């Protein structure tokens, strides 16, 4: 148990989820749910096994020194939480969870089906004295069904969910489907788990009752593949993966374009409308690079807009126009094309590496998308820039505080919230319930 004074969460009164207490028993699949709730003002108590959750062992680490309190992977998914380090496989540990559940609003958990009920910590147990309790179980495949006991780390969720089938290359022979990195199978699962949790909280304000939510990563990923299922179910066609762009049942033009500084842009919707097309060709003509694109037939294509473009059966002109534009782009820097094209209302985007947004003043300055978070445990005045709020509420703002050290709040929660005495704590330590 951490014996230093724990970080006290900032005293907020304006968070959208202010007043809601969440008990989080989550690993990699579900921890983003708790973070999103904590950042909006909920009080999130993360229950960790002795030594901390295993995500604390995932890198990168500060200065590449592996340590449970130095994992940046853990940090990015666990801001705005308190940590209670306790062995829930002991009766004393189970008692603590039961006590917390009596007054909690939400339990978030992502264990295998049946595990918590086997400890007397299922929804039926925990809601016995709290009919307002909302409990969300976010599993790999759901609480029932033939796959319920199967394991599903992120890459399995993305494979079984059909997402990888749509991601990869069409111009690298023999290359595999690609798992987009960044734990997105788990994030999709967390987003849906939280969506259900919030719906239940809203409902509770009127019904007075909580409920149990059985959510699965498998279904969450399967419902997040845009055209893939509808195209099969309605048109009987199967989409395939294409480099850097949408899956499709028939090949589409490549959208990745290389710039003079060796970076890439996503370039599409050339013929979105006549106004934009004229402006683009004018821009290219000024640089002496419009070639034959000022011809009337291209204006006709632009007049038809995207719909007209899709109707075109002969793609020769489209392909040619794209090649001319590609040559123009190759002669300019990524910044020149991105800003120039956006000013003409083309939705083209630079293919940025995540850290490059720190240098974009729209996000870093005007929108304050990155948030400085203090880490006094690493020294006076130490703070780091985190990715900030994913939405801007005018009345109940996002605000995050540092992820907890392992067991940072064990003592304060047991004593202040549950009324344990110091000698009770010593007994728990002697029985290896807490450390």
């Amino acid at each position, binding site marked *: 148990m951490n014996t230093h004074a724990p970080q006290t969460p900032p005293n907020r009164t304006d968070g959208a989820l202010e007043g809601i207490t969440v008990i989080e028993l989550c690993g990699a699949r579900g921890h983003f749910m708790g973070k999103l709730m904590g950042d909006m003002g909920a009080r999130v108590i993360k229950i960790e096994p002795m030594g901390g959750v295993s995500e604390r062992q995932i*890198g*990168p680490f*500060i200065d590449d020194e592996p340590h449970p309190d130095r994992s*940046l*992977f853990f940090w990015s998914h666990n801001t705005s939480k308190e940590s209670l380090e306790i062995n829930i496989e002991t009766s004393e540990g189970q008692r603590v969870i039961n006590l917390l559940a009596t007054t909690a609003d939400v339990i978030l958990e992502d264990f295998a089906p049946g595990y918590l009920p086997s400890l007397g910590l299922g929804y039926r147990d925990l809601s016995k004295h709290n009919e307002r309790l909302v409990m969300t179980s976010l599993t790999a*495949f*759901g609480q029932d069904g033939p796959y*319920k006991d199967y394991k*599903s780390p992120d*890459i399995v969720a993305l494979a*079984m969910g059909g997402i*990888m*089938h749509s*991601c990869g290359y069409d111009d*690298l022979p023999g*290359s595999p489907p*690609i798992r*987009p990195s*960044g734990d*997105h199978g788990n994030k999709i699962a967390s*987003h849906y788990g939280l*969506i*259900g949790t919030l719906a*239940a909280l*809203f*409902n509770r304000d*009127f019904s007075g009752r909580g*409920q149990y939510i*059985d959510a*699965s990563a498998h*279904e969450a990923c*399967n419902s997040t593949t*845009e055209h893939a*299922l*509808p*195209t*099969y*179910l309605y048109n009987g066609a*199967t989409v395939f*993966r294409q480099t*850097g762009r949408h899956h499709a049942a028939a090949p589409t033009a490549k959208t*990745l374009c290389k710039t003079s500084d060796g970076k890439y842009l996503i370039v599409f919707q050339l013929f979105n409308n006549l106004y934009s097309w004229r402006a683009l060709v004018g821009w290219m003509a000024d640089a002496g690079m419009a070639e034959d694109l000022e011809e009337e037939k291209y204006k006709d294509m632009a007049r038809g807009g995207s719909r007209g473009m899709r109707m075109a059966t002969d793609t020769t002109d489209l392909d040619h126009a794209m090649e001319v534009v590609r040559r123009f782009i190759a002669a300019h820097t990524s910044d020149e094309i991105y800003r120039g094209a956006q000013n003409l209302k083309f*939705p083209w985007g630079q293919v*940025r*590496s*995540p*850290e*490059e*947004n*720190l240098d974009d003043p*729209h*996000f870093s300055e005007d*929108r304050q998308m*990155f948030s400085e978070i203090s880490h006094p445990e690493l020294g006076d005045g130490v703070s780091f820039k*985190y990715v*900030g709020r*994913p*939405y801007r509420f005018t*009345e*109940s703002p996002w605000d995050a505080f540092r992820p907890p050290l392992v067991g940072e709040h064990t003592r304060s929660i047991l004593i202040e919230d549950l009324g344990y005495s110091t000698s009770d704590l010593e007994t728990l330590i002697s029985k290896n319930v807490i450390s």
Partner: protein
Amino acid sequence: MSKAKPAARTSALEGVRVIDFSWIVAGPQCTRILADFGADVIKIENDANMDYIRASNPVPGSDSPNRSPLFNTLNRNKRSLTLNVMHPQGMELLKTLIKKSDVIVENFSSRVLEKWGLGYEEQKKLNPKIIYCSMSGFGHSGRDRDFVTWGPTAQALSGLTYMSGLPGEESAGWGFSYMDHTGGFYGALAIMMALINRNKTGKGQHLDLSQVEAGIGLTGTSVLDYTVNKRPFRREGMPPGNRAPDQKIAPHNTYPCKGEDRWCVIAVTNDDEWESLLDVLGNPAWSSDPRFSTMESRLINQDDLDEFISQWTINLTPLEVFDILQKAGVPAGAVQTPMERSEIDPQLKHRGFIAEVEHAELGNTKVESIPMKMSETPWQLNRASPLFGEHSAEIYMDLLGLDPEELGTLYEEGIA
């Protein structure tokens, strides 16, 4: 909204009315979630501004705007109202509707509602409890607020496209508009948080969402590696393909299977799973090589390791690998095709994932469910996506109190 009696509640968002100006994918994904939970989502379009997705891959048969598979999937459970807000009387009708609603959602570029004279301040005058969710590309403030995004743009800018691919190759990126889905999730999350908050405070607010920012929010670990360790994600050897360098585990990859372009994934996260994998493989001679004796050594020698594993997977189908390994406790998966997901996957069948609903033009249609089961207020599939203007008459008459004659005039003057 009116407080329903507890016993009468069957849907989580019962009693919430949503004015839905959203279109394409991101906004409709957001309002689909609200509609699936029982909110009354009124989708507003008109002849000049039809949801573009109505024209996406239509099922052949007619030129009708009601035949798009993706549109049907994204807009089930909603009602369709045709209303021309450019007409003064149309605007008046919209204002009346705002007074009777809880939420307004739009995913236009950032100045459209202001140009209509319907920015948040105006909405608030009409209805102080209104929750206004704008889902633009760059947000409603800042120097680039007039820039525009589609899903692929937001994925590219936020870093997600770059993070997906094989090292040394171009970006594989996302094969679909992931940030339209996810942008929609964030819209729904924000709206429900604001609704919960409004239950306490009685006040509405403006939720200013940016599709790029929602994407940036998913890159937290990489950004921290840069701000803490000064290590950019753009560096040699990145992105990591299908491997897991941060977790330091191997094998963790895709493996070729029997069949054309068929693949499975295997991710061994600890020594127990490794032993189980070797048992399944029949403890081949190579497995006793010291190069593979520990997780660390397997990680160093994973090129060779992957080659050996491929020699086993290539004789099996992806689903065979999945079944055999999962039964032995080894995390593995098939890269499932749309056919496998909708016709074979016994788990999805057991869970009723593909739901069926009657569509007036397309007949019996299939849509994916909202991916969760709720014990008290399960989602309901009450109707297929609305035909263009299908609910105009009932909304104008029942909700806005027009009589049939007035409604006729609206149609004649091109307002409805």
